């Protein structure tokens, strides 16, 4: 990340204080979101989301596997993020690994719920084929191509778009099998089941600079942050996950205030994202 001079830092902080950021946005305005679906044909679902200069791709691949013994009625979902070295100079070589793990963990926490599988944004019970024997394993991969701040929001939006683009093949199970045998499964090439993505939450990251919070910070604004709180909110307005970054301590009342601001912002964001995903799917069908 290129450094900023004292004068520039002062300008950015002044802008945030006066509610007019460097590109004319208000504090709670997102950059224009551009969604493309179906960018990776070999995957079952994929999407590319551009948020200003931030560019991320998410892909979903489904494979048949065996459910774990503790949760025989649920499929398995794994989320992993990779920061490409082309995204920023500091990601060269193994520099991006720390950030990748941080993003993966934050996304898992927001979208997958706890260890027992309870409270997941993505419903794993819809992934089971034969209870206890066969289930779908979803591998969700995120790739950061270009980083200009607010990676978490972009990745969550990309995952949501990729899942709405995902078609899980229909499986025919052979009926006569004994209980201890692996059932024969026939994976159809033609029919697909669409995923229900209305329950998937989005992530809103609030970055605190000075005394104010901003939404969707660019990397210049992120360099000025004292702390950032990422809150994942679903359509009903429920909080699905919370992550705090940055070493500066926050008063609990500020965190509660941030949560209410995030809920307010998330309504517009979810509507905007849904319309963009619908538009992207429509244009993909045309081409």
């Amino acid at each position: 990340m290129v450094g900023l001079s004292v004068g520039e830092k002062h300008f950015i902080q002044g802008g945030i204080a006066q509610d007019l950021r460097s590109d004319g946005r208000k504090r709670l305005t997102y950059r224009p979101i551009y969604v493309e679906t179906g960018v990776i044909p070999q995957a079952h679902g994929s999407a590319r989301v551009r948020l200003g200069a931030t560019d991320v791709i998410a892909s979903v691949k489904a494979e048949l596997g065996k459910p774990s013994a503790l949760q025989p009625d649920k499929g398995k979902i794994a989320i992993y993020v990779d920061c490409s070295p082309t995204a920023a100079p500091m990601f060269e070589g193994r520099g991006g690994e720390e950030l990748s793990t941080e993003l993966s963990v934050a996304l898992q926490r927001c979208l997958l719920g706890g260890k027992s599988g309870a409270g997941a944004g993505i419903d794993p019970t819809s992934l089971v084929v034969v209870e206890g024997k066969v289930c779908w394993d979803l591998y969700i991969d995120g790739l950061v191509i270009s980083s200009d701040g607010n990676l978490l929001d972009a990745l969550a939006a990309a995952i949501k778009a990729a899942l709405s683009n995902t078609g899980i093949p229909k499986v025919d199970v052979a009926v006569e099998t004994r209980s201890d045998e692996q059932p024969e499964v026939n994976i159809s090439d033609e029919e697909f089941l669409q995923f229900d993505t209305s329950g998937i939450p989005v992530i809103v990251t609030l970055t605190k600079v000075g005394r104010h919070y901003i939404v969707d910070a660019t990397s210049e604004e992120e360099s000025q942050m004292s702390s950032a709180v990422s809150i994942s909110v679903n359509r009903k307005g429920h909080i699905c996950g919370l992550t705090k970054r940055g070493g500066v301590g926050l008063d609990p009342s500020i965190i509660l205030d941030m949560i209410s601001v995030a809920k307010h912002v998330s309504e517009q964001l979810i509507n905007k994202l849904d319309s963009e995903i619908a538009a992207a799917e429509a244009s993909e069908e045309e081409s």
Partner: protein
Amino acid sequence: MRGLQLPLSQTQRIRLQRALEKLQSLSCKANSDASVTVADTIPVNYEAALLKGHGTTDLNGDLVATVCGVVERINKLVYVRALRARYKPEVGDIVVGRVVEVSQKRWRLEINFSLDAILMLSSMNMPDGIQRRRTALDELNMRGIFEENDVVCAEVRNFQHDGSLQLQARSQKYGKLEKGQLLIVDPYLVKKSKQHFHHLEQFGIDLVLGRNGFIWVGEHVEARDSMVVDQANSSEQSMVPEEKNKTHTPLEMRQNICRIANAVRVLSTLGFSIDADLILETVELSSTVKIDIHDMLGSEFHVLVAEREAERRSLVGKRKR
């Protein structure tokens, strides 16, 4: 043209395409065989002795381009000038750079070139304005003039033997740039003109168009009076950091800065040459259409700017005839 990453609706896409086609047809009158892509054959007169320059290669007896760009011919030299290349400096260019390192008697600046540029301490005016030999004390106080990550405006003085640049900042108008924002565009969009410093009076804003693609938009700062005594300066400077914390740029000026910065961003996305008149016209267009500052980066305004530019160029073309 780079694929515009904008969410364009169907009608906007059609309008934009129409405007761009119009622009292309207007510009095609000039040597249309000049632009080449990779593996295009360059039309040459084979009888003349040729010097094959950058971006060309000899393939089966034909001269073939290896980069996408424009063919330039200077006497016997034929080369292809790539468009999206790094900045190619010329002596006398005004550039805006960022200080990367403070070393012995010089500052190193990053200017979007393959090497860092050097600004010698002796090429810089002293704060007290007196022309004198730089002492060891001056060398130790270099950080007081420019620190790391400062944005500096200077002029290209000459090339050094290893290919790097030497800059100078001898005049009052060069120096540190504060209270504003730096924008980065492609270097080929800023053409050489008579004036690169623009003081936009109606906004009270300084606009510096660096030929290396770094454009500075900021509050207007009066050229520092060289006869100010050193002591007054130093006492002022110690007060300034605290004052800065209280006095931010006034809101109206900030709005103007953001509007101009967004105009530059729109022009650079569309690939139009950036000069002060065009920027002012774009800002006027945005205020006549009463568009919000942030919406200037939206698809509708991009299409409007492209259409207006196509109209303007066709009018200019008609006037010439």
